Structure formats: C-alpha cells, structure tokens
C-alpha cells in the first residue's frame, strides 16, 4: 500500500479491534447484569419468604422460626453490587438493583427485630448509612470497621445503605433516625443513632459479650466504595 492509504487501513483495523473489544465488554457486562438480575429474582423470593415468615411469626413458636436471615444469594448480591459499583460505567441498572436491595434489607431488618423481641435472641441490628463520594473518607474507614464486626461477631446484623441513592425507603430511614447528608457516616445500633466515624472498639463495646447466635450467621457484605 502506497502513501497514506495504509495509515487509513490501519486506522480502520484499529477501530475495528476497539469495536470488537467494546462489544465483548458489553456482552460480558450484560451477562453480569443478568446474573445480578438472577440474584435479584432470588431476592424477590426471599422478600416474599420473609414476609410470609413475618406473618407466620404471630402463630408459630420461636423454635419454628430458625431461618429468618436472608439467603446466601443476598449476600452474593451485595458482593456483586459492590464490585459493579466500582467497575461498571453505566450505573443506571445498578441503582435500581440497589434500591431493591435496600428494600430487601429493610424487610429483613424489621423481621429480625420482631424475632429478637419476641424470642429474646441476642441479635444486634446495625444500620449503616454511607455515601460513595470521594470526600467521605470516614465512610471508607467505617466500612472496614463494619466488615470486621460482621466477620467477628455473627450476632451482629449489619444493613448498609447508600444515603445518596434516590430511594424513598432510604430517605424514610434517614428521616426516622434523624440523619442528614452532613453527618455521614452514621450507624444506628439497636435503635440508637451515632453519627461520624465509630471506631471498632466503640462499636464492639455496644455488642453483647455472649457467644454467637445460631439464628444469625449469614454475613452481609457492607457495601461501600473501598477505593475511588
């Protein structure tokens, strides 16, 4: 090939390579979204199951209500959402999934509280509100602390919420617990709100010193952006 024709042909080939790479990326990302969707479907079943158990609780004994935590699928969903938050360029679908996940968490939170009160279990519920903005360095640290709590204290149930998400459920939770955007991170431990970073020692002191509960062993990943 003579002159600049070759430069043009090479340009076309290079653009073609990028196009193939782009479509491969779209294909695999769609597969991942489909996987999240699948997990979400499972989550929907879990929601229904939770609601049913919630209703049954009135007429059943505590011994019968053993499986009150959300399924492993939900924990996986949290992991995947956390990963996708950092790696997907298109967050639209993800935000919808996060909203649904938040509702699911609230459902489980309410159910757990009901069981805890009725059956006198030692489950401690922790609501964690964070934001993904770079400016919230304490949110990152709080995420690490809650991950450690989750791993070391199975009786602690951590529910994490992205305060920046456009979700009426999260807005309601923020309002009920008197948390504003300016006081993040915030944690609510068994109904009491603590704003600002809470150290591992502080949070550990709030947990019961009894042995881990058998009714609350499924860990929930604390969704928070680790790096920006």
């Amino acid at each position, binding site marked *: 090939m003579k002159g600049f024709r070759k430069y043009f042909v090479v340009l076309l080939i290079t653009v073609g390579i990028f196009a193939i790479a782009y479509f*491969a990326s779209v294909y695999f990302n769609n597969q991942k979204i489909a996987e999240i969707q699948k997990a979400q479907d499972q989550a929907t079943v879990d929601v229904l199951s939770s609601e049913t158990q919630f209703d049954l609780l009135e007429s059943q004994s505590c011994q019968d209500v053993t499986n009150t935590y959300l399924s492993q699928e939900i924990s996986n969903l949290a992991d995947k959402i956390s990963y996708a938050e950092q790696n997907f360029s298109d967050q639209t679908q993800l935000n919808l999934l996060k909203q649904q996940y938040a509702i699911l968490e609230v459902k489980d939170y309410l159910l757990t509280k009901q069981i805890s009160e009725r059956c006198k279990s030692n489950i401690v519920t922790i609501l964690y509100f964070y934001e993904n903005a770079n400016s919230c360095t304490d949110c990152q640290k709080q995420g690490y602390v809650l991950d450690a709590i989750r791993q070391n204290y199975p009786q602690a149930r951590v529910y994490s919420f992205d305060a920046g998400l456009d979700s009426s459920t999260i807005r309601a939770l923020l309002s009920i617990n008197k948390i504003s955007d300016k006081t993040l991170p915030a944690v609510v431990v068994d109904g009491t709100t603590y704003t600002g970073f809470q150290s591992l020692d502080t949070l550990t002191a709030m947990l019961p010193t009894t042995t881990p509960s058998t009714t609350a062993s499924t860990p929930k990943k604390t969704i928070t952006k680790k790096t920006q």
Partner: protein
Amino acid sequence: MTLGDIITYIVIFLAVYVQVFFLVTYIEHRKKFPAIMNKELPELVNPPKVAVIVPCWNEEKTVHGTIASILALDYPADKLEVIAVDDGSTDTTWQELLQYKDNPRVRIFQKENGGKHTAINFGIDNTDAEIVGGLDADSFVAPDALRRMIAMFQSDPEVMAVTPSLIVHNPQTMLQHAQQVEYNMSTYNKKMLSFLGAIHVTPGPFSLFRKSMFDKIGKFRKAHNTEDQELAYRMQQNHLKIEHCVNAYVYTSSPDTVKKLYKQRLRWIYGFIQNTIDYRHLVFNAEYLNFSFFTLPSGIISIVAVVFLSASFLYDFIVFLISKINQIAAVGFNSHIHINFNWFYINTQTVFFVTIILYVLLIFSIVMGTRLNQQGHGFDWRILLYLVVYSVIAPFWLLKAVWNTITGRRQPAWR
C-alpha cells in the same frame, strides 16, 4: 468516564495502532521472508574494499576478541582492513593494540580522548575503503555477516547504509535474557521499518555505510552521545536509503546489572528525545512519509504511553496504599483476605480486552523477531521474563530521560 480514562484509551489506541501498522507491513512483505532468511551465502562479484573501525576506550579485555572476529570474517583478506582507534584510553588498551602493529590487515591509531564519534571519524578520515563501518570493542561479528551485508549494497546502488541484527553475546543473567527478547523484537521492528524506508538508528555495532555518503552529508556528530541515531536522522533527512540485513548477526555485550542497563537506556532514550527535538521539522512532514508519520511519532507515543501509564499506576498504587493504611488504622491487622473465583469478578471492561490484544500483537512481534534472530521458534519463558522485567524497570529510565530533558540536565557519558 474520567479524563484519566480518556487519556488511557487514547494511549492504548495509539499503541495498538503502531503494532497493527507493523503487522500489516509484515503481511504485505511476508513473501519476501524465505529469500531474506536464505542460508546460502551470496556470491560477491568484485567485492568492494571494506574498513571496519574499532573505537576503543578502555577496552583492554575485549578488544582482541573484537578484532579477531573481524579478521575471521568470510571476506577477501585484501579487501578488508581493521582500523583500531584508541580514544585516549587510561588502561592498557594501547599496549594491547600494539600487538597488531606488524599485522598488514590491522592499522592502529592513538588519539586524545574526544568521544566515540571522533574516534570513528578519525578512522573514516584514514581509509580509502568504499564501505566503512564501526564495531564497538565489546561486540563480535558472525563470519558470514559482512558478505550478506555487502550483497545488499551491491544489489541496490541506492542503499547507503546496512544495519545488522543484534544478539546478546553469551547471556548469563536473567536481565541479559530479557534483553535478548528485546533485541529479537527490535530485529523484527527494524526489518519492518526498513520495508517502510524509515529506520531511525544505525547501531554502533557493525552498521556499514558507503564512504561517499559522508562526503555528502558529513560524518558522525556528538549528538547527545547517540551519534548512531543522529546519523540515521540525517540520512533520512537527505532521503538516503538504509537497509536492514536480518541474517547478518552481531553479538554484543549487554549490561548484566540493572544499574548498567539503566545508564545505557537513559543515554539511548535521552538521545532519542534530543535528536527528535533537533530534527523536529521531520515530524509530520509529508516529504518524509513513513519516517515522519510513523517512526518518530511511534517513538514519542511509546515514551508518552509509558510515562502516563506509570504515573497512572503510581497514582492507583498510592490510592491503594492510603486505603490500606485507613483499613489498618480502622481495624488493625484484623482484616480477612477475601478471594473470589467467580467469573463475575473478572475484569470485562473494554480497556482490558484491548490490552490483551495489544499484548498478543507484541508477543507476535517478539516471536517473529526470535525466529529472524534464529533464537528459537516460538513462545518461550524469556518472553514473559521480558514483559515483567521491562514493565517494572523501563519506566524509570524513560521518566528520568524525560525529566533530564525538561530540566536541561546533561546527558550521561557514552560509556
């Protein structure tokens, strides 16, 4: 998409473009390779007189091997002379050279130290040979190399210079094996550039020139201690043809430590930057097509790419480090390592796939170069070694060369 992402895409796009350009050039000329790699020695009709200049500066240990390899060349003895120039050595190089004072095929000279280019120019001024070339006193030539290179001069009167393929002499350390891979890739790239008429360096070890050429465009210049690059730039500027003889092999000593390699590469890259600045009028100048639109820009792209990607990597590393410090500050060393083998967590971003394609193209260049240099037939462990070692150390000399250019620091010495 952040500004950093956009720059990353541009840099990778250009890097892929360069590799595709090489690949397309290879495909265009692939049918020539059986002839290029022909093992039969060419017959020379009326071979021209050749002078090989050996510039020496403190080469007492290697100069004998270098001269011996020239005298052993498969070439008519009466048409080949060695001109050894001691460039003010402070060791016993001159005493070693005196052993050749009665050898009719070797002429020895001693001069004050003035730099490598002055030693070669001294040799050029003291010969009447039609073809002249230099051979660093740390390099050795394969016996058939000269014949093959002279055949290229004879087959095309327009050829003004012929460059050989370089091979690391007796590689011992991992670093030297990594350099061999780089030299292999360089052979492939240089052959492609010769097809494009766009070679940008006539390496010190055994590049040959028509002596008449020096009368037209002048001899070697100091040129930031990269006189072999500057001469090639000047030749391109004057539309003089440079060919590459793939199967003319020259074995050259290579740095065996990172420090020595760093010094050598700093000199090369600094020289490339400075020479390109000196000859900036050749960049994107339609008169010099491939040299100005491909060779020089691709060299600049590779420097910019490495500088940007290293800075980007450094930034990511610092962010990671801060995040880890925050984690330790928050929970001590009480964190659990979390390994997930689910395919979901494999990177599937566009940049990931393009980077894989870029590496495939790079490995193709290396494998082709390995074959051309007759160092093997396919993929071997040294390729991975090269990719890993150079990814880690190359940014240092590139960044330092850029830094020296920006701050106007003096370039390192030629040896």
